[in-house]
């Protein structure tokens, strides 16, 4: 049952990820990426991380992809549609990506470290409460640093996107 759902979500996410890379029109890429994020959030549910699944949908699908679509709407992408996918000279990069993929696949498949079928420990209920306690008690400093980084990014984005004369 779990495995069937995992195979379904994994297949759809890989197909949509390929669509992101292969589609000529950036709008199609953005919509395929949205579908891919939804599949990944379903995989987070399978991994017993419902909080992360909701965060994934809120932040990625709700905020980041809408930002992408707004930017695509603002700029002219008709020129980009006409580009060819592989304009030559990309063979070294293709070989590099292929080697990287084969290396990682061989490492994962040949190692017995990843063949754990069952979780080592089973957690009791009320996971989100434990997660938030850990986040706000032991990881308070990184949390505050992340909020400062978000504020700096907000100010930086406004300054960058502003017109020079304004």
């Amino acid at each position: 049952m779990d495995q069937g759902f995992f195979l379904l979500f994994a297949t759809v996410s890989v197909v949509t990820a390929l669509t992101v890379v292969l589609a000529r029109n950036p709008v199609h890429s953005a919509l395929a990426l949205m579908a891919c994020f939804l599949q990944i959030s379903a995989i987070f549910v399978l991994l017993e991380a419902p909080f992360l699944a909701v965060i994934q949908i809120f932040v990625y699908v709700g905020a980041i992809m809408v930002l992408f679509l707004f930017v695509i709407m603002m700029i002219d992408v008709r020129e980009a549609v006409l580009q060819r996918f592989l304009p030559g000279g990309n063979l070294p990069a293709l070989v590099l990506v292929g080697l990287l993929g084969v290396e990682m696949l061989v490492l994962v498949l040949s190692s017995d470290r990843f063949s754990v079928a069952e979780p080592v420990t089973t957690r009791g209920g009320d996971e989100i409460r434990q997660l938030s306690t850990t986040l706000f008690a032991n990881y308070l400093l990184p949390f505050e640093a992340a909020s400062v980084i978000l504020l700096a990014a907000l100010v930086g984005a406004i300054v960058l996107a502003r017109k020079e004369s304004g």
Partner: protein
Amino acid sequence: MVPLWWYILLGVVLFVIGAAGVLLRRNILVVLMSLELLLNSVNINFIAFGRTYGDFRGQIFAIFVIAITAAEVAVALGILVALVRNKSTLKVDDVTMMKG
């Protein structure tokens, strides 16, 4: 029960697809979207290992990765809008202003 290496394999496949998008595509928008894909595949690995070893730190790292990604996308799209306003191009190869 889904074995751990299935999740790792999914992360590997998504990472390779995202890396191919970053290295092979010449459109800045698609390069940025492929970066999102890379970060997401790493998140799958974090949460899968955290679940298997009964540790919350995987989920906490994933939360921080998502927060940093949001900041990165905001700054990157701001740079993109400024770039399109000044040079009106979307190709990575045409952006050589910072080249010495």
